[in-house]
């Protein structure tokens, strides 16, 4: 089990295991957020924080919502705006303890144009 916590501690996300791989994407939103994504089945992720502690942002076709702490702004996860039983969730691995993900392979995704891995 691993816990990702925002800077001020108001919001956290618990995942069942260390990610095997991380994704660094260069699309317009991920590059601005500086995120490093670990993917899980949404139902395996436990999210905690006080009611109203988070803010969401969606754009374009609005199929995903990026959720962050409303206080310190740390990007915590993305989730499907219309979740199904098999929906996935992206958890921002920047909020794990750095030592917990040291050595995990990071793949660079060209989300800005080809949607293929660059490495």
């Amino acid at each position, binding site marked *: 089990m691993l816990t990702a916590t925002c*800077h*001020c501690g108001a919001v956290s996300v618990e995942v069942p295991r260390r990610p095997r791989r991380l994704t660094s994407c260069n699309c317009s939103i991920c590059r*601005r*957020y*500086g995120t490093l994504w670990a993917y899980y089945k949404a139902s395996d992720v436990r999210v905690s924080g006080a009611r109203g502690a988070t*803010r969401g942002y969606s754009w374009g076709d609005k199929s995903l919502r990026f959720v962050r702490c*409303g206080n310190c*702004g740390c990007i915590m996860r993305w989730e499907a705006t219309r979740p199904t039983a098999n929906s996935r969730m992206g958890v921002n691995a*920047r909020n794990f303890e750095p030592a917990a993900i040291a050595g995990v392979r990071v793949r660079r995704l060209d989300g800005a144009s080809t949607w293929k891995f660059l490495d």
Partner: protein
Amino acid sequence: MSMPQPLHGRCHCGNIAFELDWPGAASEIPARACGCSFCVKHGGVWTSDPKACLVVTIRDRRLVSQYAFGTRTATFHICSRCGAVPIVTSEIAGGIYAVVNVNVLENVEPAALRRAPADFDGEDLESRLGRRKRNWIPTVRFESRPADPP
């Protein structure tokens, strides 16, 4: 190849935008991946130059939140619509100094960024403010811009 002038940056939704006049004909810009607790979580990578000039344009000031921690001498300006953090400012002896987030630049090729880790842990307050005064952007202007029509 020299940089386009000025450099443009903005948050994802465009509420916070900036123009950065960079001195001379730079062919690359330094990009400091800060190792502090905030920047590690935000993947924050910053640039500045003591001869640069920054104009920040904000559409809706109500949609900008500010965050500070530790010595509380640096203010992170967060777009409260999209969550991007385009700039950090520090008020030193009545002046405003700034760094900008290279992750939000729009007209710079990623290859032009000279990335390097930066760790300022253990620095005392006086040295910290002195370093910012020497290295951060010393000319910073905030402007308001009317919102685009819906």
